[in-house]
């Protein structure tokens, strides 16, 4: 990993942490709101990067796994308020397990196809879950629902505030550490090797399919955890979280930051969130500028931001 990549990653974490005193001193709660969104999206992008980046599989339905995490929180808050099930300690592992399981199942089916067909089928599965969320009349259907009981953490909870913010940043750090451990392990090495030459990997005795399903599970679990945090962050859960455009946004973050690199998703999420913020302040038609701008960056620098900062080894 290049020095510049490490420095930028460290700088971003310093900024994320320094934002707490800065926001308190300068009375800028919006700063924390924005940066927390950044941290949560980066966590989901770290998850997607396992599949889209390291494993080299064009998966474009990962917003659904974020949605599973969010709806887990929303449904438990509605159905079982005041119980153990609104505790973050229960919701986080539960959401991770659910999203991981669904991701593994979707992966197992999608992985029967390749290339564009794979992309389309992951997109289709994402849409299926989106419409499933729309169909949940009891939970607001199309309109979604307000989170009536944020995830509890001891005496406090994961709604707004410094604790919630700090936890989102800590979760991002943990996600990056998990990604780091997974991808330099034999398992991760197989995933990367199969992306480089799948037929050869089979021919040395590795049943590639299983490893990719494993990558989907880990990827989905991280997205599910991000979904729990996101539901608390916005205090609102709706099918919009699962929209295919969200999946594309996550993929753009990964590609923009540097697919298949450890910190790429962090860089991509930061660039995405900050650009969106700046551009939307300048013009309300920011999307018209944003889309082509992203396209340009991805075309001009196929290795993304991490690639621009220097050759990055895989660990």
């Amino acid at each position, binding site marked *: 990993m290049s020095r510049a990549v490490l420095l930028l990653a460290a700088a971003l974490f310093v900024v994320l942490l320094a934002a707490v005193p800065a926001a308190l001193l300068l009375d800028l709660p919006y700063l924390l709101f924005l940066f927390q969104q950044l941290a949560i999206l980066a966590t989901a992008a770290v998850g997607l990067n396992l599949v889209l980046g390291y494993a080299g599989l064009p998966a474009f339905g990962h917003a659904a796994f974020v949605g599973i995490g969010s709806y887990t929180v929303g449904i438990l808050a509605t159905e079982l308020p005041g119980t153990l099930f609104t505790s973050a300690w229960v919701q986080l592992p539960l959401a991770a397990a659910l999203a991981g399981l669904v991701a593994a199942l979707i992966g197992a089916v999608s992985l029967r196809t390749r290339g564009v067909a794979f992309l389309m089928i992951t997109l289709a599965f994402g849409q299926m879950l989106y419409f499933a969320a729309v169909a949940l009349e009891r939970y607001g259907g199309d309109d979604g629902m307000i989170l009536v009981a944020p995830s509890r953490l001891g005496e406090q909870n994961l709604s707004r505030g410094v604790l919630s913010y700090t936890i989102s940043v800590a979760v991002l750090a943990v996600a990056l550490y998990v990604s780091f451990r997974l991808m330099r*392990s034999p*398992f*991760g090495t197989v995933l990367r*090797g199969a992306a480089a030459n799948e037929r*050869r990997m*089979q*021919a040395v005795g590795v049943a590639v399919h299983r490893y990719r399903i*494993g990558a989907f599970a880990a990827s989905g679990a991280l997205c599910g955890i991000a979904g729990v945090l996101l539901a608390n962050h916005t205090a609102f859960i709706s099918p919009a979280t699962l929209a295919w455009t969200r999946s594309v946004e996550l993929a753009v973050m990964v590609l923009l930051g540097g697919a298949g690199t450890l910190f790429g998703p962090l860089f991509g999420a930061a660039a995405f969130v900050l650009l969106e913020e700046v551009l939307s302040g300048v013009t309300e038609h920011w999307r018209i500028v944003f889309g082509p701008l992203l396209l340009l960056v991805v075309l001009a620098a196929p290795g993304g931001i991490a690639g621009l900062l220097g050759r990055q080894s895989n660990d």
Partner: protein
Amino acid sequence: MRAVDKAAVLAEPLLVARGLTKRYGGLVANAGIDFDLRPREVHAVIGPNGGGKTTLLGQLMGEIEPDAGTIALTGADITALAVPERVLRGLARSYQVTSVFPGFTVLENVAFGLRARRRTTSRFWRAARTGGELGEAAAAILRRVGLSGRSGVDAAVLSHGEQRQLEIAIALSTTPKVLLLDEPLAGLGVDEGRRMVDLIASIAGPIAIVLVEHDMDAVFALADRITVLVDGAVIASGAPDAIRADPLMRSAYLGEDL
């Protein structure tokens, strides 16, 4: 089959294929091929381009699903087994068009097969190490193929000749009983080709080899038995001398190469 099979049946064949058939639309790439490989044998498969040699190897390896026929390895039917399962039972192959892991060092290229054999590829938390016993095994393989000095180099930047050597090293990393080599001399210069023949000779024996090759000098230097494939069918099979002497063979194929 015209050439007389003079090689005595010394032992149960390691690998037996019966009636292997593969069609691509109207084209019959393999038309009911019977083929076997005995322990310690180098069995060359020759024939003109498009004869069906690569298709045969692909079916033996499990990469191409036969339309008909059966394959047995050490007496067990493996026709329905997927590629990785066949590998764990002792099959390995090299490819006509070089197929290595670009972006990985030479050492890492060999480590994949070593880990698969040790069944440690699913470990997901501890770092993948290339030292210790695995490193020694890798170094031994790289020494064997003549890539010792290159273990830290990205496979993508190796010369073509070195990549052909790595191709063999990757196949050896799975500790095969049976090795399928698809034109190992393809694209090699004279000296490199000679070294490749020496390399194949040095691994032959404990590992039985199916050798697909166009270079007739290499074939006659290495083969214990030769099968000739033309238009997907075996037109001759037997000892090298018998194949060399066969008049139909001379006109059908060898004429152009000898």
